[in-house]
């Protein structure tokens, strides 16, 4: 036991004191922060308003003026504010306030395009419009030609649908500006049609609109808004945590074993400890590393929840389950990774053996959407009993609104532990044989033969 503890301590210290580990540990939260805080500012702050000319060809003669009005920069800005206000109607009041300022909208969505419209009322020559789009312009670029269909305002005889419009675009037209044009033309056409029918647009819109419902999760600590989103996210977050912890530890376990083997220090170690003690020590050392990673991330999450006053949403039992399933999953993958590390001489040789293991690790992510949508469907229940996938599936089910029965959880844990014991047995055999084997890297069949012979 003393030797195992010594090996574990060295493994732990050697791992956490490397620069790579510290950087790796911080990079995930740092990336998340950067994504949330910095990226939108960076992406929008630098984008100047699009400028250009647009031609309107309107054979009906009824809608061109309205389109020109709708494409006016002021009108575009106003419409964007209006849209955002509607979307945010149920959000935090502070956000609603924010949405009211067009500056904030520009900040969030980028500058509104500044389009100069050229009227060609009555013009129907499409070829002229094409030529105009292709022509080199000394001033602002020619962006688009809007061609309104002749039946856009008055239905043709025997038709129930109105005609529409086409947009001929130059290569210089970007997607965002194109959608602004579409939105403007659509608004203009609808306005003109309503006016022609003698309907009041504002009254009609009010009639059509149902405000978004408020979604309130009733929890012990008081009602929480936005809780439902959190509940939808939680299974993914927990699965990700499990994944992160296992990946970090498993990878390090493999590389450190390969290093010990290729630097030949392993023979010096084996003069002092048995292969089993060495393996147990390494597994324990990296387990400590994995737990630290896991608890650090959980800790960050809890702090975030506290700061948003949403801690009541997190069932403390979930963290307990997370640690339990982490232990099981870690033992399974850790054992496989350490066996691979002992079997090969360099990291490049490990790739072919890593394939199946990585597949096992990715499988839960293919299952996750299915399981979180229907946590008690047959697929989810069956996957709960197939180690090592079951740890991930179980975490998803536990965090879902309809948690599984207790016996499912216990059975999944028991099966997981069984798999862990099996993998450890296999790894111990491969470890013992592989550590002093140099030469052609083995394949899976060779590993199985080692396990049987050792």
């Amino acid at each position, binding site marked *: 036991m003393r*030797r195992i503890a*010594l090996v574990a301590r060295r493994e732990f210290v*050697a791992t956490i004191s490397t620069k790579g580990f510290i950087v790796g540990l911080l990079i995930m939260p740092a990336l998340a922060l950067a994504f949330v805080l910095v990226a939108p500012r960076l992406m929008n702050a630098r984008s100047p308003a699009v400028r250009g000319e647009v031609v309107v060809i309107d054979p009906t003669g009824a809608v061109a003026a309205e389109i020109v009005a709708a494409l006016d920069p002021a009108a575009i800005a106003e419409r964007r504010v209006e849209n955002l206000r509607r979307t945010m109607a149920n959000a935090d009041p502070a956000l609603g306030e924010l949405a009211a300022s067009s500056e904030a909208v520009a900040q969030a969505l980028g500058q509104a395009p500044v389009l100069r419209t050229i009227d060609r009322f009555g013009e129907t020559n499409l070829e002229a419009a094409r030529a105009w789009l292709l022509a080199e312009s000394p001033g602002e670029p020619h962006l688009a030609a809007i061609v309104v269909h002749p039946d856009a305002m008055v239905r043709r005889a025997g038709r129930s649908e109105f005609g529409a419009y086409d947009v001929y675009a130059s290569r210089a037209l970007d997607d965002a500006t194109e959608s602004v044009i579409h939105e403007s033309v659509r608004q203009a056409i609808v306005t003109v049609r309503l006016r022609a029918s003698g309907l009041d647009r504002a009254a009609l819109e009010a009639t059509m609109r149902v405000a978004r419902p408020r979604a309130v999760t009733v929890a012990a600590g008081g009602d929480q808004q936005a809780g439902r989103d959190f509940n939808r996210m939680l299974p993914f977050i927990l699965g990700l945590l499990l994944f992160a912890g296992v990946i970090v530890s498993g990878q390090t376990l493999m590389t450190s074993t390969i290093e*010990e083997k290729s630097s030949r*220090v392993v*023979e*010096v170690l*084996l*003069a002092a*400890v048995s292969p089993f003690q060495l393996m147990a020590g390494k597994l324990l050392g990296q387990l400590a590393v994995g737990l630290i990673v896991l608890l650090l991330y959980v800790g960050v999450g809890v702090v975030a929840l506290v700061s948003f006053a949403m801690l009541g949403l997190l069932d403390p039992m979930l963290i307990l389950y997370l640690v339990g399933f982490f232990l099981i999953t870690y033992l399974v993958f850790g054992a496989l990774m350490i066996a691979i590390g002992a079997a090969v001489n360099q990291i490049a040789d490990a790739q072919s053996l890593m394939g199946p293991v990585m597949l096992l690790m990715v499988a839960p992510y293919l299952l996750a959407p299915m399981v979180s949508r229907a946590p008690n469907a047959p697929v989810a229940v069956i996957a709960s009993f197939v180690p090592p996938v079951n740890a991930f599936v179980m975490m998803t089910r536990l965090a879902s609104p309809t948690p599984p029965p207790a016996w499912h959880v216990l059975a999944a844990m028991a099966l997981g532990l069984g798999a862990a014991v099996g993998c450890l047995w296999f790894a111990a055999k491969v470890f013992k044989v592989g550590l002093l084997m140099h030469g052609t890297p083995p394949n899976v069949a060779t590993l199985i033969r080692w396990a049987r012979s050792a």
Partner: protein
Amino acid sequence: MDAAAIVLSSLSKRFGAVTAVDGIDLVVPRGVTCGFIGPSGAGKTTCIRMIMAILFPDAGSLSVLGRRSALEAKDRIGYLPEERGVYRKMRVMAFLTYIAQLKGVTAAVASTRAAALLERLGVGGIDDQRCEDLSKGMLQRVQFVGAIINEPDLLILDEPFGGLDPVSVRRLKEVIADEHHRGATILFSTHIMAQAEEMCQHVVMIHRGRKVLDEPMAGLRRQFDPRTIRIEPLEAGADLLALGALPCVERVVPTADGCEIRLHAGTDPAAAMRDVVARVPPARVELARVRLEDVFLRLVADDAATDVAARALRADLQGLGPEGAAA
């Protein structure tokens, strides 16, 4: 405590189709320095790894320091593997302390011993350097310190001098001699015969997984009683073949710069030497001594080194001496 340091009985180990060690019996008594010699691939390292319980035999049994496996006595064994290895990123003192702690030595004792031994081996003051920054020779000395830091009862050294400069070799030999005087049993594998001759009281020779020789050095020297005189005459034209007329001489074999004179069994070499020198004034004259190298080369040159060959070798050595072995 009276049990021999190492006992191997009918020890065998196969790797696939290759028999690396083939039924070796061996007893290494306590307190001796035993040379374990043989060409590369003879099975020395495999044998040592089985003694260390790093590999496990397919057949046969062994005991180490009176235990059934080295696993039960690892704290009392020091081992310097042939393949040197360290943790590249670790600092020298931290590495040595770690190895010592694994063998049950406290960190405080370990660092005192390590500092003293490093100093003694001429690499004092490297405690804080990372292992990856050391030269190969320095690393080898660091590893040697790791092998003896627990003051072992049994010290197993696999090719300890490979890649070292002569000064370092001398220092290492002194420390090994000290370990011997402290009472440690030393098993030391080498393919450099001069080293074994110089340091060992007992020699075990392995070839193709089998033991072909297991003798005390003293016994070897007695067996290979010098019965050959090498002479280089002072004058170029001296009649060397006339020496064959002396009653003590069996035959005369000319060499490049003189000749070798084989004496009859039971002849007093001192008297024979006087007779020879009286006939031919020498520039140089000497009694040939048994050289392990000759035995070794003879063995390696012999592709059919089976038990029969080994017996033939022994008979040859006892009857005729090491004549012509280097040829």
